[in-house]
């Protein structure tokens, strides 16, 4: 089990992402995951061994290190990366669920399970919101735990069993500060990308819905049956579902060439 598993899972999500989603994936893979594995992990490798307090009292260094670093920055960083990447799996799971349903019923229920319409659109939207939530949450947690993003070279500690206020020196504080800021900047960039993607998705859906409403005023739907609603699949938006409750009725609806009528049966 290693970061390769996360990389493979996220690569699967790439297929169902928008253009901005793919840019987000590239940034996560290259500027966050790769930098973490090839550089950042090694900076914090010997952090406790090289943490030195100006005292010979046994236990003082341990207690002070534990107080200043309840969780190591590099471990928090790795948790951050995992939590931020996993909402993309919701999309993969949704598509797998749709494909599973089609297999079970042995008929085509969706135009294409991977097209971003209907349920998948909502799942994608939720995954974006959750991703952003995690990004902002972890940044705030980082800030609160370490009193900012700057790593000082010296900390004063007077916890028991330290006999007085002692000076404790952190190893490689400048390098750690540089990588911390790198993490924060890439995180903020990912937040901006997620917000942009979210806005674009909502805006596109809004425009499509407005256009659909506008075009429908010039169509004759011909059906007064309140059980039937018209569906247009394969378009981004929140389409209405066709439910054939009234199979005993003779229904004649003028066929639009680009519309595909699907039966979403109530047996499920």
């Amino acid at each position, binding site marked *: 089990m290693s*970061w*390769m598993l*996360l*990389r493979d899972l996220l690569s699967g999500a790439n297929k169902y992402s928008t*253009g901005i989603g*793919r*840019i987000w994936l*590239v940034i996560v*893979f*290259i*500027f966050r*995951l*790769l*930098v973490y*594995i*090839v*550089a950042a992990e*090694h*900076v914090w490798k*010997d952090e406790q061994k*090289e943490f*030195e*307090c*100006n*005292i010979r009292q046994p236990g003082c260094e341990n207690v002070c290190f534990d107080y200043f670093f309840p969780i190591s920055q590099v471990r928090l960083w790795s948790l951050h990366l995992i939590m931020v990447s996993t909402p993309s799996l919701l999309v993969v799971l949704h598509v797998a669920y749709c494909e599973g349903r089609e297999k079970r019923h042995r008929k085509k229920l969706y135009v294409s399970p991977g097209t971003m319409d209907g349920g998948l659109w909502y799942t994608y939207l939720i995954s974006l919101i959750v991703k952003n939530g995690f990004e902002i949450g972890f940044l705030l947690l980082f800030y609160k735990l370490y009193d900012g993003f700057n790593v000082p*070279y*010296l900390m004063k500690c007077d916890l028991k069993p330290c006999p007085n206020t002692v*000076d*404790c*020196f*952190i*190893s*490689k*504080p*400048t*390098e750690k500060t*540089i*990588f911390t800021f790198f993490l924060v900047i890439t995180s903020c960039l990912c937040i901006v990308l997620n917000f942009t993607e979210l806005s674009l998705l909502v805006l596109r859906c809004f425009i499509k819905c407005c256009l659909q409403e506008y075009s429908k005023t010039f169509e004759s739907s011909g059906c007064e049956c309140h059980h039937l609603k018209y569906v247009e699949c394969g378009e981004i938006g929140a389409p209405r579902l066709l439910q054939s409750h009234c199979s005993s009725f003779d229904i004649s609806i003028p066929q639009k060439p680009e519309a595909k009528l699907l039966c979403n049966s109530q047996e499920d």
Partner: protein
Amino acid sequence: MDWGTLHTVIGGVNKHSTSIGKVWITVIFIFRVMILVVAAHEVWGDEQEDFVCNTLQPGCKNVCYDHFFPVSHIRLWALQLIFVSTPALLVAMHVAYYRHETVRKFRHGERTNEFKDLEDIKRQKVRIEGSLWWTYTSSIFFRIIFEAGFMYVFYFLYNGYHLPWVLKCGIDPCPNLVDCFISRPTEKTVFTVFMISASVICMLLNVAELCYLLLKVCFRRSKRTQTQRNHPNHALKESTQNEMNELISDRGQNAITGFPS
């Protein structure tokens, strides 16, 4: 996720690169990434452990090490390699977008005479012209900027590319000016010079590639203007000739039908 994955991603761009671009990719991965992973990591592995200062004052060693090495050489090289490789992704994204558009047009029946099937589109080598030329040139430009930038940062941070065997440090809490000794300074200098040389070679390759692309465009444009200059009314002459041919053939037809059977 490791250097192998980056190699796979950048290797995909290789197909659409010029010959100089392919040489550049080889130099990057063999003479820089591989050297960094198999050799440099070992040399710098114990850099802080074996950094020794001539004092027992706790904290002095930490502070002096931090002052002289704000960022470790290997981390800076790793960042440099990542930043220098990523502009190639611009080209990869452009090619992916171009293929996506071609597939869309093919599905609408627009370019069926050019390609047999979708696999043909995926296998096609995209030529570096038009908007891809601009993307490719921009990526080379950014590569040069990043290489030069990192080389300058290196020079600025470490006061040159040579590592001394002793450093004098008098920063608090060190009680006085103490001698601090770096581990393996000669070996580190050798590898630093090697990596800088590889960086210079990569930069020269990028400059050569940029010049090659610019010359190619200038040559193509001059060829086009020369063709237009030699045959200024070529198009007009052609259409006039076509009309005359039609008239001649019509008259010939009439002449034939006019013969008594």
